[in-house]
């Protein structure tokens, strides 16, 4: 079981290396991230982009271009379509966003004809946070993609959380469905959703995990609070996964962690046929590396 993000690198050694396809990978941020991952021996790197630009960047950054497979594309959209096609044809195992806008990147993934998104699949975002004040990793969703998930989307996100936890070697993940209180309030939709998902866990309709909710955040990650409030659940104070009721709550939690607690994280977009890395230029190079490692662990 992986309890620190850098343990992902060790876990990946000796396994068949996954191919990461970076879209419109002309810029130094993207190339550096893929280069670091290749150097760490965790993936094979395929850069799709303007060949001249890629060569120029590699030269400027003193990165050996020969460690990558470089495929030329004339525009960002063309690069996106080519990369998505490669992944759909199983010539790549992970997709990664480069210099193009998130909008164009997501549109290529969502393109129905390209077939990267199974019918009715829910596209969501999973973040793995390492906070020194918690005894293990926290796997959280959705902090970035679905604003107000309905019950079916929440069920999908819960399954992604569980899958991510399992990819990290957690055999029977403990999932907390987060709310403002542990009390059931029929008038609060997230509270109702939490009880439904919790019961679906009991019934094995959502399999492979112990699910408890609603739980306030303190009850999910702090044993003492759980004891004081007499919550009799294996999940209380020991959650691996946190499902947030909406994007605001999840986003504030993750940014509080990164900006006020100096935590590191890795993140991946789930729901497509392959894990998709969606790092932004604002991310640290370590975050990008962790995201690639996480995607590599989750790739089939």
């Amino acid at each position, binding site marked *: 079981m992986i309890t620190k993000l850098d343990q992902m690198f060790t876990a990946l050694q000796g396994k068949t290396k996954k191919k990461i396809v970076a879209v419109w990978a002309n810029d130094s941020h993207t190339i550096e991230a893929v280069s670091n991952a290749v150097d760490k021996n965790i993936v094979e790197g395929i850069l799709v982009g303007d060949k001249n630009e890629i060569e120029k960047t590699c030269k400027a950054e003193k990165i050996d271009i020969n460690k990558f497979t470089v495929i030329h594309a004339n525009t960002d959209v063309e690069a996106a379509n080519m990369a998505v096609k490669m992944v759909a044809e199983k010539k790549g195992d992970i997709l990664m966003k480069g210099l193009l806008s998130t909008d164009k990147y997501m549109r290529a993934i969502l393109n129905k004809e390209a077939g990267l998104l199974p019918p009715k699949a829910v596209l969501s975002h999973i973040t793995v946070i390492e906070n020194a004040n918690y005894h293990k990793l926290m796997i959280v969703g959705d902090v970035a993609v679905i604003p107000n998930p309905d019950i079916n989307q929440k069920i999908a996100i819960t399954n992604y959380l569980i899958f991510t936890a399992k990819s990290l070697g957690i055999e029977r993940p403990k999932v907390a469905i987060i709310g403002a209180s542990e009390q059931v309030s029929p008038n609060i939709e997230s509270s109702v959703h939490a*009880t439904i998902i919790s019961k*679906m866990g009991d*019934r094995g309709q959502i399999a492979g995990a112990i699910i408890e909710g609603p739980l306030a955040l303190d009850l999910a990650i702090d044993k003492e609070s759980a004891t004081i409030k007499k919550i009799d659940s294996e999940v209380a104070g020991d959650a691996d996964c946190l499902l947030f009721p909406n994007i605001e709550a999840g986003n504030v939690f993750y940014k509080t962690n990164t900006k006020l607690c100096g935590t590191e994280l890795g993140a991946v977009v789930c729901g497509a046929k392959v894990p998709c890395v969606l790092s932004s230029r604002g991310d640290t190079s370590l975050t990008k590396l962790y995201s690639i490692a996480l995607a590599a662990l989750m790739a089939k």
Partner: protein
Amino acid sequence: MEPITKLSQIVDHLLDKQIKKRVAVACAQDQNTIGALAQAVENGFAEAIMIGDQTQIERIATLEGIDPTIFTIIHLPNMVDATLKAVEMVRNNEADVLMKGLVGTDKFLKAVLDKQKGLLPEKAVMSYVAAIELPKYHKLLFVTDTAVIPYPDLKQKSAMLKYSIDMAHKFGIETPKVALIGSAEKVSPSQQYTVDYAMMCKMVERGQLPKCIIDGPLDVFLACDPKSVEIKGVPTPVNGDADVLLFPSLESCNSFYKGLMLFGEGELAGLIQGTIKPVVVMSRSESSTSKFYCVALACLMA
């Protein structure tokens, strides 16, 4: 207290504890009602206040070989007057149980539900709980709601849960096992009753509802048959040993109990709950034994 597992044991328990309750009967000039009350009085756990047409009450009793002087008779030949008087007596604590006689159910319930002079506290949920004895089940089964609420919402289901637990307690069952009945054990967000059930289970866990062992949705097999639990492999704390079955609708519950009466050799006692005192409403087609047990049950719950 040793749990009561047969309806006849209600009477034993009442006599054992020397419990005696005053039953006010609205429009008592009815053969079956007079018979059931006479039996209750003779057993010694009830005092009967028969309100209605005195001449007819005395005549019917005599025809049945019952001495009318075992009853307190209040002469009010008008049905509405008699019903109002019976309700008023219960309200004023001059009686412990209200029972319907010859009067129509709608007139009777109208008096019970009257906001000023009735028996239902403001905002209280009125519901019906029945205790069923079956040759093929090892204990009594409390089922709700066979008679009053067509489609209970979460608040009403929660009240039904509370009432059935109250009844199970009176029967000496300390921590009743409650099965919330559906057609399957799966939760479906598009089926509201399964969502209600999920909430109720969690609310019991969180101490928001009375303490009990609860699970649902469960089908009747998983609720009452340990073998089905084993075969289906559904881990459930009720484990095929339910005391209480709470149904999602009146139709389902009503059909369940009537099926048991007709084909399962069941015997039943039931009453209205939510009122300040127990209210007995019996349908004319119920057996005289069932009617007698209803009176006994009401005296137990009073």
